[in-house]
């Protein structure tokens, strides 16, 4: 029995480290769980990207659920996410609101001209102050906000076809189920 003890200890460590590898492969260690989940989205008033004299506020977007997608032309992963938004955006059944984060409008427009514009509404937060209220700390990030202005789902990092199918679409389906009765 005493001879087996080191082996048992070793196997316990193998299990522990194996669990760590498995856990980290399924979770983004950089993702911070947002305390805003299932809480009202912060109020905001931001200029439109293409018509900077006009603004869009939280109140303007109430009534219908929407996906707020934080993106920027400087953000490399946004380029990877963009084709997914282009392909899946129209099939989601919610408005796609583009939140241009800490970006020069010129760069953002050039980027959208190059990659395509999947957004129904485009707002710009060049100083990035409103983004702090949303707990944004990078791009891309996506918020699903329901008709009452409550954040129902958040994804940090690029939306992949896998994430859209396994997380985003079920979350949207749950919203439309609530709206039915």
């Amino acid at each position, binding site marked *: 029995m*005493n*001879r087996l003890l*080191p082996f048992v200890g070793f196997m316990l460590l193998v299990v522990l480290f194996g669990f760590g590898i498995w856990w980290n492969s399924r979770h983004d*260690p*950089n993702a*911070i*769980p*947002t*305390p*805003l989940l299932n809480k009202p989205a912060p109020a905001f008033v931001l200029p439109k990207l293409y018509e900077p004299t006009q603004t869009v506020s939280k109140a303007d977007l109430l009534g219908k659920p929407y996906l707020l997608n934080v993106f920027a032309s400087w953000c490399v992963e946004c380029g990877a996410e963009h084709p997914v938004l282009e392909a899946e955006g129209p099939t989601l059944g919610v408005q796609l609101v583009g939140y241009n984060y*800490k970006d020069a409008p010129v760069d953002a427009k050039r980027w959208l001209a190059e990659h395509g514009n999947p957004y129904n509404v485009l707002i710009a937060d060049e100083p*990035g*102050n409103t*983004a*702090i*209220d*949303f*707990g*944004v*700390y*990078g791009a891309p990030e996506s918020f699903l906000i329901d008709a009452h202005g409550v954040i129902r789902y958040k994804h940090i990092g690029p939306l992949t076809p896998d994430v859209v199918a396994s997380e985003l679409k079920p979350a949207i389906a749950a919203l439309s189920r609530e709206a039915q009765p």
Partner: protein
Amino acid sequence: MMRALLHVLLVALLAFAGVTHAQAIEPMPFADHAQELRFQHLTQQLRCPMCQNETLADSNAPIARDLRNQIFQLMQQGKSDDEIKRYLVARYSDYVLYDPPLKPGTWLLWFGPLLILCAGAGVVLVAIRKRGRDGSATDTTSDRMPLDNEPADNGDDW
């Protein structure tokens, strides 16, 4: 001549060191030195959300710069350190605190090490007791061969 050259080199090096340090923390119009110290103390206790192992004071990430500015603004509005921390926790969760609060979600974090220590102490206690029972019949000072179920002195059991 050599000495002068060395001096010039040293001064140049020092100047560069100053520059690299100043890049991380841009000058802010503090009301007084006490406020600056308070700002530095506070930002050193807060963690940059973007870069896990850096404080807000040290980080050069864009979000860290924005949050430093925000903290500065909140200070100008007369907010206390606690209020500023609550402001950040409401947006970025406890993650931003280097000193996590004690609550059910962090019990494992706080008491986990104690748990492991107790488990280790338990194992040691059991081993000692067992050894005591085995060793009571024999004289441990005599120069005999160690028994198979006794830990050997050379430690090759572990």
